[in-house]
């Protein structure tokens, strides 16, 4: 009989902070015009980015006859893909920042200002344990 799987409760940032983006793959086509900005970015700005972020594995691969694409792989195993066809190097740098700064989670609506899994400090209100109303 196997023991049940125990999943560690991860609280990134409490003890140590681990950046969530672990790999960025840059696909480009050498012939097509939509990859022009991507090729220029790879030649000029990408090396500086890779040096500044040693925790991110940067891969550049030709992908012929397709639009240029940046694929980010994260520590939770999920990936995010961004098509950067016809973009200037400045805009591609913005997309790279976007991928680098997010985690693998889906984009979602944040409804509350604080996300908490701890019990409430003051406890749940009960009419039997609070001061009676006085007029």
């Amino acid at each position: 009989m196997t023991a049940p799987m125990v999943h560690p409760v991860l609280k990134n940032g409490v003890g140590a902070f681990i950046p969530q983006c672990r790999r960025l793959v840059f696909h480009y086509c050498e012939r097509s015009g939509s990859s022009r900005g991507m090729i220029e970015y790879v030649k000029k700005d990408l090396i500086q980015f890779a040096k500044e972020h040693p925790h991110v594995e940067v891969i550049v691969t030709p992908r012929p006859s397709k639009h240029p694409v940046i694929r980010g792989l994260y520590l939770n195993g999920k990936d995010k893909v961004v098509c950067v066809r016809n973009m200037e190097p400045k805009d591609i740098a913005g997309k790279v920042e976007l991928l680098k700064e997010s985690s693998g989670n889906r984009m979602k609506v944040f409804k509350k200002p604080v996300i908490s899994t701890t019990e409430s400090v003051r406890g749940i209100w009960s009419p039997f344990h609070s001061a009676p109303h006085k007029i």
Partner: protein
Amino acid sequence: MLRTLSGRLACATHRANAAISTSVSASRQFSTAFTAAQATPTATAASPVTSETSSSSNSASPVNLLRDQLRYYAVAEIKNRPYLITKNDIIVLDRLKDVQLGDVIELNQIKELGSKDYAIQGKPYVSPEYYSIKATVIEQPKGKIVETFKKKRRKHFQRRYHMKPLHTLLRVSELEVKAQ
């Protein structure tokens, strides 16, 4: 529920001892603390707790009473908005332009510092020598598309605006009350 009841009964004995200014509710004790240099100049004169804090090594001082309890919360003001936080929480803010991933931010605008039975309310902020609160920038994501739809009926006017909000997520890595 039982745990709550016994906890309140146990702390009832403290109420008689502490000379703390009380608010309306009998079950919780509130103390107003004067603040450090960033406070308004009139804060110290009007505070009823001035005599308490002068004997700061007293173990019954408000901060030590609060500290002896198990868990704390704080109401932090970030960019003029209040956030009620405990340790390990994630704060969702509008995007901060001047932070990077992994930066540690010390929060020093704390309006209220509390535990189960005691709370210290700042005027306007609690003195930073009572606490140490730090938050780490863990993520700066884009949110889901938000649609704003405006219509004026019978006037042939309607608009759809779309935007993707930018956020900064902070993880509260440390929330400690310092012994006085």
